[in-house]
């Protein structure tokens, strides 16, 4: 029972109890608060698992942006949801059904736990293969090598998947609201504290984001984490009301979202002639190409994430009598 095991057990128990809180909380607002704390604790769990890149992503994306999204949703929904007076949750399915589902879920969890315990002892792993092929990719960080060299198709499709997701959010606008500005991040009233934060933090955040992207080649970091930090800064500025949310139809921003995947496809297709395989990099030029792709992808993912956060375009504020 080494000290690190005790810490791990404590961490696991806290994470599980937070998950229980998220499920059992009476109002959705409390559940979302619990979820944000859960996301940040999960980042520490990823550090304990030796996965620094994932810890960065989980903290920024799981705890941060998802929390922002859900908090905004919970605040908006509180006008519609029937706030249970004495803590009894809204009329859910009958208790017997819940019991049945509870038993089913505990069986699934127990089965999975048993499977985890029965995993083969010499754990199969690609770590050695990744390490031996690392010099060929010219990149020091093995995770970036997997993301951009060995399994480049997944990362390309990742950046492409964000486009239909963004369009899915846009499609929920009303037809006359199509030319308006997305409404989720516009503040009800401007507070001086938030304005101060939105003026002081973004410069630091942008420098940190670019640093995170730059060191991504050789140390934990990379384009996803950098894009999330930059998107968070932009969202903060929008939340403080310093800037108007970006219009859906603005050509430069649409090009920004598209340029990342397009450059990636261009380099991939050029690989067919230069390095005799789609998404392959010519021998000496792997690292500069990977950095070029990462730079453009960071830009595209940042803009896509902000559009995802900003929500569907709503009719212009003046026409919208809700405020």
């Amino acid at each position: 029972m080494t000290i690190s095991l005790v810490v791990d057990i404590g961490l696991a128990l806290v994470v599980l109890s937070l998950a229980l809180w998220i499920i059992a909380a009476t109002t959705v607002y409390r559940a979302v608060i619990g979820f944000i704390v859960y996301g940040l604790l999960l980042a520490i769990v990823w550090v304990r698992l030796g996965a620094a890149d994932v810890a960065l992503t989980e903290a920024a994306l799981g705890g941060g942006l998802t929390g922002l999204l859900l908090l905004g949703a919970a605040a908006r929904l509180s006008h519609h949801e029937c706030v249970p007076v004495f803590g009894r949750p809204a009329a859910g399915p009958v208790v017997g059904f819940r019991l049945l589902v509870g038993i089913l879920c505990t069986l699934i969890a127990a089965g999975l736990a048993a499977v985890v315990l029965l995993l083969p002892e010499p754990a199969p792993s690609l770590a050695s293969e990744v390490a031996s092929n690392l010099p060929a990719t010219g990149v020091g960080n093995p995770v970036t090598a997997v993301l951009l060299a060995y399994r480049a198709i997944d990362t390309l499709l990742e950046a492409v998947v964000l486009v239909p997701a963004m369009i899915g959010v846009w499609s929920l606008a009303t037809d006359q609201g199509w030319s308006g500005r997305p409404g989720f991040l516009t503040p009800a009233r401007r507070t001086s504290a938030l304005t101060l934060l939105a003026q002081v933090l973004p410069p630091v955040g942008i420098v940190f984001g670019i640093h995170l992207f730059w060191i991504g080649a050789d140390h934990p970091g990379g384009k996803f984490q950098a894009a999330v930090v930059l998107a968070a800064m932009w969202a903060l500025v929008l939340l403080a009301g310093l800037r108007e949310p970006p219009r859906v139809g603005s050509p430069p921003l649409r090009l920004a979202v598209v340029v990342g995947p397009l450059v990636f496809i261009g380099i991939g297709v050029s690989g067919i002639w230069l390095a005799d395989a789609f998404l392959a990099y010519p021998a000496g030029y792997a690292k500069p190409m990977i950095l070029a792709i990462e730079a453009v992808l960071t830009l595209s993912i940042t803009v896509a994430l902000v559009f995802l956060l900003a929500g569907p375009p709503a009719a212009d504020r003046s026409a919208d009598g809700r405020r």
Partner: protein
Amino acid sequence: MSALLDGFTVVAVSLGALFFLAGTLGLLRFPDTLARLHALSAADNLGLGLVVLGLLPQVASPLGWIGLIAVWLLALLASGTVSQLLAGAVRPLDGAETQARDNPAEGPFS
């Protein structure tokens, strides 16, 4: 020399932990939101400062020092802003107490 530094680290970090404990006690015991806010922001920021101070000798490269101090400064900035926002939600500057209290979800997004 390193034994002295290690000793300093242990002392500083445990002091920091003590302040966190005080902050949490304040959170549990104090009657209303504003008092809790005060306890939390005061104790936790000081506790974090002590922990960062204690960890400084453990970190070799100067870049690491900058990183640790940046963590502390950003945490200060964040907790300051959040305390302002929460206090503003509980008791808006214009003193109208009742309106905000029964609609906790007002917050920055209406």
